[in-house]
């Protein structure tokens, strides 16, 4: 045997071993297809529970595209790696999950593998859904399998090699998917634990509010430190929160359940759909989420609390005229913004005093640019907050002027940098979300509040 043959043999053995190892890590069997189960085969109570859970999971948000049918998929989700299209999760036999057994559904939720054994991209947040209990998965399955079946084939993802090879996802899972159902913390209340189970699991709040690493996984060390979604900034929900008035459990509950809070304003951007869904779930679950998240924010230090009180007091008194250092920005603000934001009409139908706005005090100007450009879209057929967009009447330079003015007058923070680029990007990209997302379906503002001034 020559030396080269020995080396060749070793390489071959390693290659075979390597392929074998990859195979062992990546290969998942198909789960046998079933005939789509009859809707009557699911108990109504289970379906109803599934409906509430699907609302907590915000499933319709990604799995419905504007103009498309519910849960039929097709929403383009921009990621740093390319565009991924959401899948059809209606019970259509050919293009949806009609042939998925409950076991196949649970496996997808828990380990991100489809019925045929293919790895799903983690845009589907199974790194959170792995925490969902069997019981809840069963209810979600019952709910989805009793929706209208819609024939809508999934669109091809726009990913480049090697990311278009699903086997790559198996490696990602080795690194970042931590299986295991949620373990309760016995030192905390039952309500806190319920909230933690929902937040870390089905509600997948961290998917947007936690920053991601270079491989697109949430950074465990920076949990809830603020992240990105569809060219919006998802605010930090921990001690780094930019909210001028610190959040507490009562404010979180009100905001999540009815969509707004007088000290914090109205949910908009991608969060509008989240609160629209949360308005449909049992208040006890929303309260549990609020209690857990208030603990994640942590109690504000005394100086932060004092600042919050000062901001509130200032917002309630007629605010003094701004420094006239920037007359152009001031003029734009006076005609385009102040008529609503200083009208004295309380939220949600009057604009919030901008001194209370996280969009202005936050570290990232994108949300403010997005809102100024596109406004807040009304919810069809409902009374809901509304703001006109100014994309047609303001040039990029004028929006930059306005943003600088708002930041210096209301932000109490150092000026933003690179605003020109932010506004230019916002005009180009963020409208993609508004054009493709199906949008909020329910006016989340509490109906009992709607007739109040």
């Amino acid at each position, binding site marked *: 045997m020559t030396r080269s043959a020995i080396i060749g043999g070793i390489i071959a053995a390693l290659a075979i071993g390597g392929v074998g190892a990859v195979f062992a890590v990546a290969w998942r069997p198909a789960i046998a297809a079933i005939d789509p189960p009859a809707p009557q085969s699911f108990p109504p109570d289970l379906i109803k529970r599934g409906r509430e859970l699907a609302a907590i999971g915000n499933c319709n948000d990604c799995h419905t595209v504007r*103009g498309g049918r519910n849960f039929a998929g097709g929403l383009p989700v921009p990621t740093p790696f390319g565009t991924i299209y959401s899948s059809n999760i209606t019970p259509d036999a050919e293009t949806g999950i009609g042939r998925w057994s409950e076991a196949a559904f649970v496996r997808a939720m828990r380990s991100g593998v489809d019925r045929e054994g293919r790895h799903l991209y983690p845009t589907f947040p199974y790194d959170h859904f792995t925490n969902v209990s069997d019981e809840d998965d069963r209810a979600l399955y019952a709910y989805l399998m009793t929706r209208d079946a819609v024939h809508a084939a999934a669109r091809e993802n726009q990913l480049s090699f090697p990311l278009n090879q699903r086997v790559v996802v198996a490696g990602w899972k080795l690194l970042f998917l931590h299986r295991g159902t949620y373990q309760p913390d016995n030192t905390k209340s039952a309500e806190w634990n319920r909230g933690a189970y929902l937040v870390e699991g089905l509600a997948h709040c961290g998917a947007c509010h936690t920053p991601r690493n270079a491989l697109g996984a949430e950074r465990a060390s920076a949990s809830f430190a603020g992240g990105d979604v569809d060219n919006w900034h998802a605010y930090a929900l921990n001690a780094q929160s930019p909210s001028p008035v610190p959040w507490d459990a009562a404010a979180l509950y009100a905001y999540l359940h009815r969509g707004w809070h007088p000290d914090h304003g109205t949910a908009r951007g991608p969060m509008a759909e989240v609160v629209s869904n949360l308005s449909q779930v049992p208040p006890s679950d929303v309260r549990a989420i609020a209690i857990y998240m208030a603990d994640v924010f942590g109690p504000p230090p005394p100086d932060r609390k004092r600042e919050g009180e000062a901001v509130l007091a200032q917002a309630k008194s007629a605010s003094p005229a701004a420094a006239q250092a920037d*007359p*152009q920005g*001031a*003029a*734009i603000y*006076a*005609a*385009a913004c102040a*008529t*609503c934001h200083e*009208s004295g009409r309380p939220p949600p139908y009057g604009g919030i005093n901008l001194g209370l706005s996280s969009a202005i005090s936050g570290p990232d100007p994108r949300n403010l640019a997005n809102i100024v450009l596109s406004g807040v879209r*009304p919810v069809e057929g409902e009374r809901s907050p*509304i*703001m*006109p967009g*100014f994309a*047609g*009447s*303001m*040039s990029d330079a*004028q929006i930059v002027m306005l943003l600088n003015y708002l930041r210096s007058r209301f932000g109490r923070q150092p000026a933003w940098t690179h605003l020109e680029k932010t506004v230019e990007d916002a005009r180009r990209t963020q409208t993609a979300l508004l054009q493709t997302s199906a949008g909020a379906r329910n006016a989340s503002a509490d109906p009992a509040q709607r007739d109040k001034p």
Partner: protein
Amino acid sequence: MMTLKVNGHDHQIDAEPETPLLYVLRDDLKLNAAKFGCGLGQCGACTVIVDGKAVLSCVTPLVLLEGKQVTTLEGLGTVSEPAPIQRAFMEEQAAQCGYCIAGMMMRAQALLQRNPKASDEQIRGELAPHLCRCGTHMRILRAVRRAARLMDTAKLLPAEQRSAL
């Protein structure tokens, strides 16, 4: 003092930079087609066209309009020679009280200039921010479709025949 271009003419305007365009149009220039509805940019009655885009004139301060072209309904056509969009709204009898109609026409005009073949869905989406309390929505939609057809045929005819129509 600033120069404001409205319907092709320059006007010298003496007003504060934060004055809403709507006030200048109605009070100073006596162009009353654009209406004051809510004053908050929420009803669409004040819509005019600025550089080809539909804009809510009640929340558009003068300071934003330096060097831009403002077009109001008066700039599209006259009573004796109405523009296609105006003819279409008359022929479909799309106005009842009429308060929202100038704004509707301006938004529809901007849409059809940009996209002469706008689909029903696009027309509805575009006009969604406009409120009409009388309920002539279906006539308004018909009028916009008719305007699109009129604009399409108008392009094929020489000017003399067009005015004779």
